[in-house]
């Protein structure tokens, strides 16, 4: 305890050295005077009295020195002294300081930015107490994105599980909120009545739901609502009076009872949660087809909190034992869980971070980016090391002098490291800011439709700790080698010769090829990603996206019946077809590349009686204008026509569907039967009411995802009962403005009470769909460009220095008859040698990294030879450019001037 107190006092003394020095001097002065007085009294002569007093004290300066060692913390004091000196040196060389500091800030910032995203998307926990106790119940086919669970499955799981305190159900939804006469769409969620108890989440204001709020009709006072913190801030200006206010949500009056805590954005990462309603409210938003008790609708995210002492393994074992019972109870008809969904298995995993579609989409790209950005940091360190090394070698004399004057090796070593450390400190500050700004713009880049996902990028402790750690790493990586060189300076010869003798040569021989190797890797990765992106973008997807405008229309506020909603949608299409500037328009039952999918059960009869049955045909209900709007080409027969409505059901098959249902036969004029829910009737139940006649075959379209194979499509005319209150429209027009105006006008005229439609272009949708690729391509291209620039600078600096050191040698060569071209060739060859060595190593690394990218690539092999050749060519070109300038300088050496110094 006492020792600690002493250290605190000593640390404090570090900061008041001057005052304490004055006091010490005064005290010793007093001491001497008193002793001199005594000595005089004892009869000594004044001179002798003073001498004896000094002897007795043991020397003023020695005493002071001993006293100081005890007073402060000497190590710290020399450190301060060295730091002040280092700062002065950095200030004296602003060019060097700026170049090295910026390089480090760039490397550190880029790493901070990518880590911020990785942290927010992959590592962050839900902001609830003990998130590690949370588990999530999944439903997935091996290797496929996990599906949500059905209402009956949730109920059955809840009945049979024994390891959790309880299970909650959550569903991300969009609500139509009416405010001052206009209806706007708000992102939010439904949660089961026990949800907040399971999460142990307390409201910021008011109260959260309990079981009594989660009943049909919402209880005696109607439905209650919770607001998200941000929404409350923006729309209610943080006023407490929001509590008790009435809102119109999907045409239903609800009462606000609470505000959720800040930072809570729901259980699904990257989704906004501005409004939370009890699960029973589903009857309103899914009207007129509520899904709560339907065994074939999979829409609930189910999470639980483990009882103390239980583990995910226990939950898994519990589920394995009960899954058969759960499935039986969840779907007694066996139509779904034993039919199409038979291969899907229920599972349990950690629910610490909630559920994240972003994680599914971005985990791999982010891991890849972490690798690339780590390489970039190495490169930045290498460049800084080169710069510092050049500084050290030009300060050889200074180091020699200091060491001759008695500075210890450790102190010189520390001096160099300290200078690099200060640079890295600057890099840390700059990098933290840069990383934060970059992460923010990256997040906004992720969204091309609507608001950016609420990904929190504010620098948190974990992020700052990470950034600090990589700064320390960079300082060591860039400073150790130069510091070792500084220590190895032998004072004798340097001081005798009177000039810098050492060059950065030896090290440059290693650093530049290393830089080249990293550049090759980064460039190769970026080129592969870019080529694969262009493939996705340009390759024929079965659509002509340019000129197509799409709209999501929410009719729920008008509370239409199912039939009415259908009639409205068809009327809107008719109105659109007649609008000015519109070339074609259609309704869509499930829009393409829209994060949704559809599958139906169909079968056909071959000429020889063979039955071809398929569970995975995508039934798309459209208008006659569909093919003209989307630009999907008809390969055989014709498209759908209005007249087909009256002559019984007609359909168009995509090429792959035609080949599946009628292998080797002509599909035109044949029938495809809707299989219903019972596969055993395939080929037997030939009810003409369930059949459609194939009138045309279209090209394949990548409906599900641009990255995946085209599903088998069956297009038929919409009858109007295919959708609920959400309608998708698509319009091909001359200008996007005309289309948007036409859509708004048509919606207003047909359903006055509908929410303002969300309008976006097909190209925006593609952009949104390819956001991970865009992010990867953009960032990796940036990294590669920076890498090339740094490498070129490194090579240039090395060769320029070399030419300068060898001026005399080149002069002699020229005087002896070498042509200027030889000097140029010599320098360029020297550069090429370094680059070739680096390229050889780099190619091996590049192929390894490319393998890591593997599944992120589309239509390009990870060892694509064309890309490899291009990368090598680019590097050689850069090497040539970087060596040409110093090479030219070599040719301009005047032999007379150079030799005169001999």
């Amino acid at each position, binding site marked *: 305890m006492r020792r600690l107190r002493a250290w605190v006092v000593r640390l404090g003394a570090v900061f008041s050295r001057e005052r304490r020095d004055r*006091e010490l001097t005064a*005290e010793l002065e*007093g*001491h001497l005077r*008193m002793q001199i*007085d005594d000595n005089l009294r004892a009869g000594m002569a004044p001179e002798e009295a003073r001498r004896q007093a000094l002897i007795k004290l*043991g*020397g003023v300066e020695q005493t002071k020195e001993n*006293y100081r060692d005890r007073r402060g913390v000497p190590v710290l004091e020399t450190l301060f002294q060295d730091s002040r000196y280092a700062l002065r040196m950095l200030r004296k060389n602003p060019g060097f300081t700026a170049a090295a500091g910026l390089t480090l800030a760039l490397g550190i910032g880029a790493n901070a930015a990518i880590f911020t995203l990785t942290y927010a998307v992959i590592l962050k926990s839900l902001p609830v107490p003990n998130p590690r106790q949370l588990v999530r119940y999944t439903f997935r086919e091996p290797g496929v994105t996990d599906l949500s669970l059905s209402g009956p499955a949730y109920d059955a799981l809840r009945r049979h599980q024994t390891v959790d305190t309880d299970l909650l159900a959550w569903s991300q939804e969009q609500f139509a909120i009416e405010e001052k006469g206009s209806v706007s769409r708000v992102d939010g969620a439904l949660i089961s009545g026990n949800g907040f108890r399971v999460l142990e989440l307390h409201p910021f204001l008011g109260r959260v739901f309990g079981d009594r709020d989660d009943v049909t009709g919402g209880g005696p006072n109607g439905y209650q609502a919770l607001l998200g913190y941000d929404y409350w801030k923006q729309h209610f200006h943080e006023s407490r009076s929001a509590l008790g206010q009435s809102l119109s949500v999907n045409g239903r009056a609800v009462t606000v009872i609470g505000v959720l805590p800040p930072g809570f954005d729901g259980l699904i990462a990257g989704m906004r949660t501005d409004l939370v309603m009890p699960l029973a409210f589903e009857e309103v938003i899914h009207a007129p087809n509520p899904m709560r008790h339907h065994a074939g609708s999979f829409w609930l995210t189910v999470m639980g909190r483990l009882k103390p002492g239980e583990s995910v393994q226990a939950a898994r074992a519990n589920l394995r034992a009960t899954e058969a019972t759960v499935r039986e109870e969840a779907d007694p008809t066996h139509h779904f869980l034993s039919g199409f969904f038979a291969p899907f298995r229920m599972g349990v995993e950690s629910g610490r971070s909630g559920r994240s579609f972003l994680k599914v989409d971005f985990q791999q790209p982010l891991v890849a980016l972490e690798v690339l950005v780590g390489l970039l940091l190495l490169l930045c360190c290498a460049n800084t090391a080169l710069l510092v090394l050049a500084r050290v070698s030009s300060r050889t004399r200074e180091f020699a002098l200091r060491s001759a004057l008695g500075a210890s090796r450790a102190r010189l070593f520390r001096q160099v490291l300290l200078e690099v450390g200060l640079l890295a400190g600057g890099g840390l500050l700059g990098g933290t800011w840069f990383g934060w700004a970059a992460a923010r713009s990256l997040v906004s880049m992720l969204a091309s439709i609507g608001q950016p996902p609420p990904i929190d990028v504010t620098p948190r402790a974990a992020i700052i700790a990470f950034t600090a750690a990589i700064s320390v790493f960079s300082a060591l990586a860039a400073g150790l080698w130069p510091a070792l060189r500084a220590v190895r300076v032998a004072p004798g010869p340097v001081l005798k010769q009177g000039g810098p003798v050492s060059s950065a040569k030896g090290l440059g021989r290693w650093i530049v090829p290393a830089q080249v190797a990293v550049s090759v890797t980064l460039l190769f990765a970026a080129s592969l990603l870019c080529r694969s992106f262009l493939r996705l973008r340009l390759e024929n997807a079965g659509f002509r996206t340019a000129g197509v405008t799409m709209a999501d229309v929410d009719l729920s506020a008008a509370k239409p019946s199912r039939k009415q909603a259908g009639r409205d949608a068809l009327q809107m299409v008719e109105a659109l077809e007649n609008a000015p500037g519109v070339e074609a328009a259609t309704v869509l039952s499930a829009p393409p590349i829209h994060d949704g999918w559809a599958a139906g059960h169909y079968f056909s009869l071959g000429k020889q009686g063979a039955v071809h049955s398929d569970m995975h045909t995508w039934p798309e209900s459209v208008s006659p204008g569909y093919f003209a709007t989307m630009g999907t080409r008809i390969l055989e027969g014709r498209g759908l026509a209005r007249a087909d409505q009256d002559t019984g059901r007609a359909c168009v098959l995509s090429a792959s569907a035609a080949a599946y249902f009628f292998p080797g036969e002509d599909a035109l004029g044949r029938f495809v039967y809707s299989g219903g829910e019972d596969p055993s009737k395939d080929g037997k139940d030939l009810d003409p009411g369930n059949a459609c006649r194939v009138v045309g075959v279209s090209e394949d379209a990548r409906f599900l995802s641009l990255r995946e194979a085209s599903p088998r499509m069956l297009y038929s005319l919409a009858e109007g009962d295919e959708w609920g209150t959400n309608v998708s429209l698509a319009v091909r027009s001359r200008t996007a403005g005309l289309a948007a105006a036409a859509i708004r006008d048509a919606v207003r005229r047909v359903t006055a009470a509908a929410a303002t439609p969300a309008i976006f272009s097909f190209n925006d949708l593609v952009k949104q769909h390819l956001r991970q690729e865009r992010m990867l391509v953009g960032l990796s291209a940036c990294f590669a460009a920076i890498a090339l620039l740094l490498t070129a600078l490194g090579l240039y600096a090395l060769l320029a220095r070399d030419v300068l050191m060898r001026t005399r040698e080149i002069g002699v060569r020229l005087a002896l008859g070498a042509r200027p071209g030889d000097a140029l060739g010599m320098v360029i060859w020297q550069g090429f040698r370094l680059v070739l060595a680096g390229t050889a190593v780099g190619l091996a690394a590049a192929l390894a990294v490319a393998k890591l990218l593997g599944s992120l690539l589309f239509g390009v092999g990870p060892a694509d030879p064309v890309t490899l050749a291009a990368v090598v060519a680019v590097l050689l070109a850069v090497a040539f450019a970087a060596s040409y300038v110093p090479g030219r300088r070599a040719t301009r050496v005047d032999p007379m001037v150079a030799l005169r110094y001999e």
Partner: protein
Amino acid sequence: MGDKADVWQGTLALMVLKTLETMGPLHGYGVARRIEQTSRDLLSVNYGTLYPALLKLEQEGYIASEWGQSDNNRKAKYYKLTRAGRRKLAQEAREWEQTTAILARFLAPGEESS
């Protein structure tokens, strides 16, 4: 000076504390003189080593200092015992007595045979 024993650090601290207890507040020169006198000039304090020792005791909170006037009107820094210092002195003195008692028993003639 060689025939006088040098004062080693740990004991010096104890002597300083004891001196301050018996004499009350005192400046560094006074402490040094007092130690020499008490030891009847058998001990020679190198006055220079006294100041770091005083500083250490002050950092540990056993003594406190303030500026004052000496008898012959010189400005001097006066040290005095704190309450913690008094406790420390009692404890150290006790330990010292124990140590010397043990050593005395060891060194007493004829003890080994019994």
